[in-house]
């Protein structure tokens, strides 16, 4: 595991989001439509966590020099975009943070489904849960 605290904090946040998704899944009754849909997205959440782990490892090896070599390199520099001006270290960190964001959104969507099911009144459950399931689908589509 990387000794860099920023990468370590990012991966810890990714693990927390992953655990939150699973906790939301466990609150749903097995066999229910909501449980099936949240369970179907668990593989994508696992894959995203694995991606975060790869970014953590990459961050350990990443350099902090800007593209084109060391900061002391002489000569003309080509025009770079803001993203391209980031050092490899910063790019990996940014990608890890984006992964954390996607995982938290997916976890929020699953928690939203669990909360909607729990708060449903004595009437039809589907009317209040459908919106949350649609949000879950959208959040899972962000994951690779």
């Amino acid at each position, binding site marked *: 595991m990387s000794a860099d605290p*920023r990468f370590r*904090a*990012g991966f*810890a*946040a990714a693990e*927390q989001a992953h655990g*939150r998704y699973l*906790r*939301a899944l466990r*609150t*749903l*009754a097995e*066999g*229910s*439509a909501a449980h099936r849909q949240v369970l179907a997205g668990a593989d994508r959440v696992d894959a995203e966590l694995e991606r975060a782990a790869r970014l953590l490892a990459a961050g350990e090896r990443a350099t902090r020099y800007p593209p084109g070599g060391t900061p002391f390199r002489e000569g003309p520099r080509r025009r770079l975009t*803001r*993203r391209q001006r*980031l050092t490899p270290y*910063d*790019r990996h*960190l*940014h990608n890890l*943070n*984006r992964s*954390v*964001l996607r995982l*938290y*959104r997916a976890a*929020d969507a699953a*928690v*939203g489904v*669990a*909360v*909607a*099911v*729990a*708060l*449903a*009144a*004595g009437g039809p*459950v589907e009317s209040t849960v459908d919106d*949350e399931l649609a949000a879950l689908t959208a959040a899972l589509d962000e994951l690779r």
Partner: protein
Amino acid sequence: MPDPWRPDLGCGAWRVWYAECCDALLAFDRVVATLPAGQLRDGVAASRADLLPLLASALRTAELGAYLDPDGPARPPALVELLAADPMGDLGDRLGPSPTGRLRERIERIRGELTGIADEAARLAARLHEHPHATDVAVWLAGLAEGVAQARRAAFIPSAYRVEGER
């Protein structure tokens, strides 16, 4: 039914919010204890049985909230700091509030209803103290019963989780 004298929820923000609901029911108990023996005391005390399901609902809601977000609906400070320090700029505004905020709202609604019932019972106790020979106690109790029924409707009991095909 949970005993309001011994809330058994774990420590944390959810326990505090549930404990506030317990405090409201305890306030109701204290009002009943001050009433002299008679029709009013019997009628008010009988309403307590209808308030316990509200407390049970608050407990289940708090337990669910504590399981999903143990530290409450607010985002962890470490996460907020992490996203704010991103090299490409603050990513924190791309993350909305946690859905467990709705669970907290439910608990606060129940607390409000229980507090309202306790206040109404206190008003009846004060009225009896001012008019000890009143003959329309039954009307007072009917008003309290309507308040309890309204509280149960406002903080409805969550339905059990449903399996497909089951109503």
